[in-house]
């Protein structure tokens, strides 16, 4: 039932067989999955998809697996929330939040990519999966890998916060805390990946893994009745998510799933303390200049983004733009989102909302255009980002007088 023809270099178009490889031997460009769209056209329709279970595998023909899904069977199809309270605050007419804070099982969009990566790893015959991560990816590989019966090696910097370590180690992977920075961990992992026959989800399985992000885009379209929104605001770390959401929109148009013509613009959101992609877009530059990240949005802190070039191309081609926001703006946006729509996003969600506000202010997004803001992870994971920045708690004695005293002080 697979529809993948080959792997293809995005740069020089050389083709390779379907193997756990990720870089072109000839020109070093990244490899991408090549589908047989003619065959897929005959197999899917809005009706076929609509009758399926509500998880990310309802788009399985457009995911790079051969057999049945083997992981993430309860992942995906997260809510698309019509955010009228927030829209009113921002003077907007039609605002939606794609809410991956509610993702099963590990509360971030990484469950999408890991579902595909682990299924593919099993198809390739791997018994061990691995990743380098500081957070969401580690949680997802640890959890989904446990359920899939895979041996797991998770590499983290030793200085990681205790709460993030607990959210991985509870699933009992082999958790390897490396003395060094995240970049050191990454470098070590590429050496380990060369030596051991393991499935590193974001290294040798990357061409397959990355395709999982498309399900976020397909869901947005389906949940809008297969109508494309005018604007989509997407957080950027490596840039892969934005690239793949744009790809999913184009595939939906190509296959006739979309109603009408695709006119969606992609907007990249980054923290100012790590904004190599936003900077390249704003400066109309072809070159992604690497930076040393310094931001509370740690899940987006990739200074040398692997897919930055392609993300910038997608933004440009779609007629979008980019915006970057300060740590204070991120915190304010997290609080605004929670207090208007009841959604507690991680810092990356603060980045996308704060960037959306800036794009409105500068007129890049018009208030009457249907706009989707992607919220990709849950705030319960990064509570320390709000330390000392939240509203006041009212402390009282356990008697009515003390309570009413406090009420008065609140001005109620």
């Amino acid at each position, binding site marked *: 039932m697979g529809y993948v023809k080959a792997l293809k270099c995005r740069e020089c178009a050389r083709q390779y067989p379907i193997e756990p490889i990720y870089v072109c031997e000839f020109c070093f460009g990244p490899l991408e999955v090549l589908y047989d769209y003619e065959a897929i056209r005959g197999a899917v329709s809005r009706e076929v998809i609509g009758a399926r279970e509500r998880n990310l595998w309802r788009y399985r023909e457009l995911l790079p697996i051969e057999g049945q899904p083997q992981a993430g069977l309860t992942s995906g199809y997260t809510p698309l929330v019509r955010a009228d309270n927030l829209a009113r605050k921002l003077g907007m007419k039609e605002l939606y939040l794609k809410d991956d804070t509610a993702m099963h099982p590990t509360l971030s969009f990484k469950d999408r990519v890991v579902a595909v990566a682990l299924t593919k790893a099993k198809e390739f015959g791997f018994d061990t999966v691995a990743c380098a991560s500081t957070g969401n990816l580690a949680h997802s590989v640890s959890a989904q890998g446990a359920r899939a019966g895979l041996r797991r090696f998770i590499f983290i910097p030793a200085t990681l916060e205790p709460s993030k370590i607990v959210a991985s180690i509870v699933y009992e992977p082999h958790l390897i805390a490396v003395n060094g920075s995240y970049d050191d961990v990454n470098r070590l992992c590429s050496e380990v990946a060369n030596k051991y026959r393991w499935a590193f989800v974001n290294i040798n399985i990357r061409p397959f893994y990355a395709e999982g992000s498309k399900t976020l885009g397909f869901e947005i379209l389906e949940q809008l009745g297969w109508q494309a929104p005018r604007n989509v605001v997407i957080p950027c770390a490596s840039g892969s998510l934005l690239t793949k959401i744009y790809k999913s929109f184009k595939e939906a148009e190509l296959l006739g799933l979309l109603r009408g013509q695709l006119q969606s613009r992609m907007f990249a959101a980054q923290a100012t303390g790590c904004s190599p992609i936003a900077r390249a877009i704003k400066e109309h530059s072809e070159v992604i200049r*690497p930076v040393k990240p310094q931001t509370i949005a740690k899940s987006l802190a990739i200074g040398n983004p692997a897919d930055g070039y392609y993300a910038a191309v997608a933004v440009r081609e779609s007629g979008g733009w980019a915006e970057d926001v300060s740590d204070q703006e991120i915190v304010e946006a997290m609080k605004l989102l929670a207090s208007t729509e009841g959604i507690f996003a991680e810092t990356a969600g603060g980045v996308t909302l704060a960037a959306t506000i800036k794009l409105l202010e500068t007129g890049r997004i018009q208030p009457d255009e249907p706009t989707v803001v992607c919220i990709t992870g849950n705030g319960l994971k990064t509570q320390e980002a709000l330390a000392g920045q939240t509203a006041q708690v009212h402390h009282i004695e356990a008697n009515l007088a003390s309570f009413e005293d406090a009420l008065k002080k609140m001005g109620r």
Partner: protein
Amino acid sequence: MAVKVRIPTPLQRLTGGKEEVQASPGKVIDIVQELDRQYPGLAERISEGGKIRRFVNIYVNEEDIRFLQAEQTEVKDGDELSIVPAIAGGKERHR
């Protein structure tokens, strides 16, 4: 003295296994052409139409040439030029 050129693992098949080779001073793109005369096929792997390929990073004394004068960057006697595949991280991949 000459320019010291560091060759990444995937290109060492072309240099007979040598990790480091020598070239004469000059512009980056001229050095690539000179290396191609010594090790045929090398230029095609890392450049196209006089431009360094997007997923090949070249450093002159640790500085990325995209922040210098790109392909036109002058490399002097005693300088070190490193060729690093961007995604492979300079390492041979596992098959």
